């Protein structure tokens, strides 16, 4: 007789909703990027997927002319004012999208396994300290890799019940050793 061994893990990964914080979508033509960097006091990475941190403000390059800006609540008005002041010289679009997405944090030894349930991309190949806009089972998400087994996932709020339902199901399966 053969017996299959299962490794049971009571807590395969932790899933938590992070508290609300302001979020902006920034779009500017690549030739105006440097001018805007100076005006806003931020570093806008030029390569897609790269991130920068200035003070408490985190910037991620999503496309050739698109960035997402996570700013602490205390710095929001200053950022909007700085954008308004430079607008005439450097045309750009700085739109607040704080209510559009909710951020989940996935951490724990099997966080990577849980993500592979929904992401077609090779999540393991995503380097720590980078991020990518990708797909989680038909929902567009932004996946931030903060550590080897620590991720943040920005999900549009209307897709959140769907994404959570899948992750809860995956957690149940991993707990039972499947």
């Amino acid at each position: 007789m053969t017996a299959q061994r299962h490794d049971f893990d009571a807590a395969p990964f932790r899933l938590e909703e992070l508290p609300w914080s302001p979020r902006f979508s920034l779009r500017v033509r690549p030739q105006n990027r440097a001018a805007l960097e100076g005006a806003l006091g931020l570093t806008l990475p030029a390569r897609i997927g790269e991130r920068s941190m200035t003070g408490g403000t985190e910037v991620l390059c999503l496309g050739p002319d698109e960035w997402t800006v996570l700013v602490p609540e205390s710095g929001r008005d200053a950022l909007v004012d700085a954008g308004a002041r430079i607008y005439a010289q450097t045309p750009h679009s700085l739109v607040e999208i704080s209510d559009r997405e909710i951020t989940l944090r996935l951490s724990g030894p099997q966080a990577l396994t849980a993500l592979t349930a929904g992401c077609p991309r090779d999540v393991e190949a995503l380097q720590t300290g980078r991020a990518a806009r990708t797909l989680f089972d038909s929902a567009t998400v932004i996946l931030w890799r903060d550590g080897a087994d620590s991720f943040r996932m920005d999900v549009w709020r209307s897709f959140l019940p769907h994404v959570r339902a899948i992750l809860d199901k995956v957690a149940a399966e991993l707990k039972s050793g499947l």
Partner: protein
Amino acid sequence: MLLIHCPYCDETLPEAEFAYAGEAHIARPADPSALTDEEWRDFLFIRTNARGPHYERWRHIHGCGRFFNACRDTVSDRFLMTYKAGEERPAHATLEAAE
């Protein structure tokens, strides 16, 4: 699943992140009202329907959001190359070198 190289992200990513957007290098006529009905029909509806290398548009919709062009072999479904929108259509010699 097909793997597609996005020329903007410079990464090879799964097809699920992309959307197909029809044949590439079809220029909209500068003055549509000057065209005959036949010319307008050809612009709107008549496509190459190639057997072999086919130039087509794709959009990295669940990624950088950019449209780009690709040359895909319609027989083998292999992507011969992808290049940024606005760039010249690569010659067949370039394609063979890329293979």
